[in-house]
C-alpha cells in the first residue's frame, strides 16, 4: 500500500466534514464537523511528515491541536451563551443577517 492513501483518506474525511458543516443545523454538530475537518488536516500533516522524513508536519499538527482546543473552548462557550439567550442551538435561528 502506498502511504499516499492516508492523504486520500484525509481528503475524504475533510470533504465529509465540510458537507456536514453545510447540512447540519445543530451548532454543536456543526462544531464537531469542524473538528473532523481539523483532524483530517492533521492526518494529512502527519502523512506529509512521513513523506518528507522530518518532524515539521507533526509540529504543525501539534499546533493545530492546540489551536483547535482553544477554538473548541471559545466555540462551545459561544454555543452555550447562544443557547441561553435564544433557547436553541440551531444555526438557522440566528439568521439575523437578513431582516
Amino acid at each position, binding site marked *: 500500500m502506498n502511504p499516499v492513501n492516508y492523504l486520500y483518506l484525509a481528503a475524504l474525511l475533510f470533504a465529509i466534514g*465540510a458537507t456536514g*458543516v*453545510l*447540512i447540519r*443545523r445543530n451548532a454543536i454538530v456543526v462544531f464537531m464537523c469542524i473538528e473532523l475537518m481539523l483532524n483530517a488536516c492533521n492526518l494529512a500533516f502527519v502523512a506529509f511528515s512521513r513523506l518528507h522524513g522530518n518532524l515539521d508536519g507533526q509540529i504543525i499538527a501539534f499546533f493545530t491541536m492546540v489551536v483547535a482546543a482553544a477554538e473548541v473552548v471559545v466555540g462551545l462557550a459561544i454555543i452555550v451563551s447562544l443557547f441561553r439567550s435564544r433557547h436553541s442551538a440551531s*444555526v*438557522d435561528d*440566528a*439568521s*439575523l*443577517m*437578513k*431582516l
Partner: protein
Amino acid sequence: MENLIALLVAAPLLGAAVLLCGGRRLDRVGHWLGTLLAAASFVVGAVLFADMLGRGAEERTLSQHLFSWIPVEGFQADVAFQLDQLSMTFVLLITGVGTLIHIYSIGYMEHDERRRRFFGYLNLFLAAMLILVLADNYLLLYVGWEGVGLASYLLIGFWQHKPSAATAAKKAFLVNRVGDMGLSIAIMLMFTTFGTFAFGPVLEATGETSEGKLTAIGLMLLLAACGKSAQVPLQSWLGDAMEGPTPVSALIHAATMVTAGVYLIVRSGAIFNGAPDAQLVVTVVGAVTLLFGAIVGCAKDDIKKALAGSTMSQIGYMILAAGLGPIGYVFAIMHLVTHGFFKAGLFLGAGSVMHGMNDEVDMRKYGGLRKYMPVTFVTFGLGYLAIIGFPGLSGFFSKDKIIEAAFAKGGAEGWILGSVALLGAAITAFYMTRVMIMTFFGEERWRHRATASPDQPSAEPAAETHGEHDEPHPHESPRSMTIPMIVLAFGSVFAGGFFSIGDRFMHWLEPVTRHDHGHSPLSAATVTGATMVVLIIGVALAYVQYGRRPVPVTAPRGSLLTRAARRDLLQDDFNHVVLVRGGEHLTRSLVYVDHTLVDGVVNGTAASVGGLSGRLRKMQNGYARSYAVSMFGGVAVLIAATLLMRAV
C-alpha cells in the same frame, strides 16, 4: 457715406425694440414712432441713393464692416453690409413702400387696441428685410431671412384670437422652414466648397467650381426661394397668409418677404449661371407657379385671396425671368419693383374696400362700389391696368420684357416658356378684370346680401326687412389710407415707363447682374403685339363672363378645374395626403417602434435586472449555512481553476 448703411437697418430695428419693449406708455405715439423710423430709413436710403448716383457705374458699391461676428480659425463670419445697385433698389422699394404701408396702417389699424405692437412688428419686418438685402454674406442674409420669417409669422398671426389666423401663421412659418432648410444646406455646401460665404469670394469663385456642386447649391437656393417666395411646391402658405391684416398682406406681397426669393436668385446669379440644370429647374418652377397662381386667382371669390393668387403668379414671372440668367435678371428685378408698386396699391385698395364693407372679403357680396369709393376705385383701377400690362403703365413694360426674354432663351425651351408667359398674361388679364368688375361694377349685391338669392330682383333693398346693422355702408377710407394708395398709384403708372425709357434700369443694374440681350426669335414688336392680343382676349372673356351677366351671390358649383382652383388647386390636399398623412404614418410607426423596440429594450432590461435581482435576493436568505455553501463552492471553483491552469 458708407457709415449710413447701418443706419438703414438700425432705424426700424430701434423702432421694433422700442415699440415692443416700451409697453403701454407708447400706445398713443407708437404708430407715429414706427412710421417715423420707417420714413427715416427711407430718407437715409434716398440720401445714399443720391450719393450713389453721383459716382461712376463701377464705383457705386459701398460696404460697411460692423463687427466680426464669429471669428474662428477657418471660419470667419462678419456682420458687414454691402450696398450696391441691386441692394439699393431693394432698399428703396422696401423702405418706400414700407413707409407708405406704415402710413396706411395708421388709419387701417386705428381701432385695434394692439396697434403699437403691430407697428413694432412692421418695423421688425422692415429691419429683417433690410438685413437680408444689405448683407454681404450668406450667413447674415440668413439672419435676415429668418427674421423675415419670424416677422411674417407674428404679423400673419397678429389676430391670433382667430384660430384661422393662428393656424395660417403656423403654416406660413412651417412651410418657410422647409425653404430655410434649403438655404442653410446651401450655405453649408458653400462653406465646404468655397471655404467662405461672403458674396464676393463665393460669386467670383464659381468659375473654378464643378457644375455638379453649383447645381446642388443652386437647387438648394431655389428651395429656399420657393419657401419665401411662395413658389410651387412651397406655395401653400401664401393664400392662408391673407388671414393677417391687409397692410401685412400688402407688405408681404409687395415690398418684403416674397421678393426675398427673387433677390436670392438674382444675387446668386453667378452660381446659377454656372449651373444650367439648376437654371432650367428655376424657370420650370417659375412657369408652373405662374400658371398655378393665375388659375387659383381666377377661382377665388375672396378678394385678398384672388390678389394672393395674382402675387404668386407675378412672382412666378420674376422667378422665371431670374431663371433665364443674364437675359432676365434685370427684368426680374424691374418687374419686382413695378409689381411692388401696383400690388401694394391693389392690396391697400382691397383693404380700403374691406374697411368700408365691414371687413367683408367675398367679392360676390361687393359690386358697384365705384360710386362710394372713388379714390379707392381710381387707384385700384390704375393698379389693375398696371398689372394686366395696359400699354404705358408699369406692368406693361416689365412683364412684356419678361415674355420677350423668355422667348429669347432660345430653342424649344424658349418657345415653351414664352408661350406659358403669354398664357399667364391672358389669364392675368382675365382674373384681374374679374376682380375689378365684381368689386366696382355691376349691381350692388351687398344691398341684398341677407336674402342670399341671386335670382331675386334687387329692387327691394334688403335693409328694410333685415335691420340696418346687417347692411354695410360703403364709404371712402380716411386720408391716411388714401394718400399711400395715391402715391402707389403714381408708381404703378409711371415706374415702368421711367425705368424702361432709355433702358435706365438696365444700365443701373447691369454692373451687378450683367445683362445679355439674347437672341429672340420674335421681334420685340411681335411679342408686344401678341401680349396685347392675349390681354384683350382675357379682358373680353372676363367682361363677357362677369360684366354682361349678373354675378351670383353664392358661387356656382363650377367646373372641375374651378372647384380645384377654389381649393388652391388641391395644394393643401396634396400636402395633407403626402406630407401630413405620411408624417402621421411615419410618426405612428416611430411611436410603435419606440413603444415596442426601444421601450421593450429599456423595460426589458429593467425587468430582467429586476427579475434577476429578485432571484439574487433570494440567495441572501440570511442563513449562515447558505453563505457557507457559496463560499465552499467558490473555493472549489478556485481550486478547479487552479488545477486546470496547471494542467494546461
